[in-house]
C-alpha cells in the first residue's frame, strides 16, 4: 500500500494494488477480507497522524474496528482506501474509512474505528507479571 500523494482529500487516501498473495480465494481471485480490513486500519491510523491537533510522536492503539464488506473486490483492481478523522480529543480519536475501486469507483467496504492515543511506546513488561492485565492503558 502507498499513500495517494495526488489525492486532495478529505482525510488521507492510500492505494492498494492487487497481488497474488493478498488473495482470499485462488479460484475467484478476490482481495481477502482481512487485507481490506488491515488497510482500513492502517489508513485510519495515518489519518489521525494527519489531524491538525495530533502531536508528533504520540503513539496509538486501535480500540475497536467495524467493517462492512459491501462488494468482493477483484485482484485486478487497485483499491483506494480513504480515512477521515471525525473526532479527536487528545485521548481518543474516531475515524470513518471507505475502500473503493480506483477506476470504477465501486464501494468495496466501509469501516469505523476508535483509537486510543498516548499508549505505551516502549517494550512492555512481561505480560504475566503485569497486574493490571492490560497493555492498552
Amino acid at each position: 500500500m502507498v499513500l495517494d500523494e495526488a489525492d486532495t482529500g478529505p482525510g488521507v487516501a492510500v492505494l492498494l494494488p492487487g497481488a497474488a498473495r493478498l488473495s482470499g480465494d485462488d479460484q475467484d481471485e478476490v482481495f481477502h477480507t482481512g487485507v481490506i480490513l488491515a488497510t482500513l486500519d492502517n489508513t485510519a491510523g495515518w489519518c489521525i497522524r494527519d489531524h491538525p491537533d495530533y502531536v508528533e510522536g504520540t503513539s496509538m492503539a486501535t480500540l475497536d474496528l467495524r467493517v462492512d464488506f459491501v462488494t468482493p473486490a477483484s485482484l485486478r483492481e487497485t483499491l483506494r482506501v480513504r480515512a477521515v478523522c471525525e473526532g479527536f480529543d487528545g485521548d481518543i480519536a474516531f475515524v470513518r474509512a471507505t475502500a473503493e475501486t480506483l477506476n470504477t469507483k465501486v464501494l468495496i467496504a466501509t469501516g469505523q474505528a476508535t483509537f486510543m492515543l498516548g499508549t505505551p511506546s516502549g517494550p512492555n513488561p512481561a505480560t504475566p507479571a503485569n497486574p493490571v492485565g492490560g497493555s492498552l492503558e
Partner: protein
Amino acid sequence: MNKPVQAGGSLPSLALAQQQLIKMPYAAFLGVSLRVGPDGLETSTRSRADLIGNTNLPALHGGVIGSLLDITGMLTLVFLKALDQSPRLIDMDIDYLRSGQAQPTLGRAEIVRGGRRMANLRAVLWQDDPERPIAIGRLQFLLPKTETTRGGLEVSR
C-alpha cells in the same frame, strides 16, 4: 468452545477446513496453521517481523489481528458445518483488548447462531493464556448457496 454441534447433520471436517485454508493465499502468507484440540478447531500463527505494526513495542499489527479473527471464524464455520464452498464475510466487529506480543497467536471461534443463509460467529485470539484474550470479534457470514436456498425457494427471510 466450538462444540461439534451444527445444523444440517454433517460432521465436523478438518479436511474441508484444511482445503479452505489452502485456497486462501493470504492465510498462507500470514502463516496460519490448523489443529483440532479438546475444545475444537484452533488456528495458530507464529509471529514474524513483517506482521508487526508497532516496531517499538513490538506489537502485532491491528490488521493482522483482525485478519486472524476473520480466518479463524471462517475456518471454524467451514469445519463445523462441513462446507465445501467458501462462506462470504459480510461484516465484522473487532474489540482489541491487549496488544499482541511478538509470539505465537492462537485462535478459536464458535457459532452463536447458524441459520440456512447466515451464520453469526464469535472469535477470540490469545497468546499465553486463553483467559487473557488479545482480541475478540463478532462475524456475520453469508453461507454458500445450497439446493434448499438456491433458486428463490426460500420464501421468508
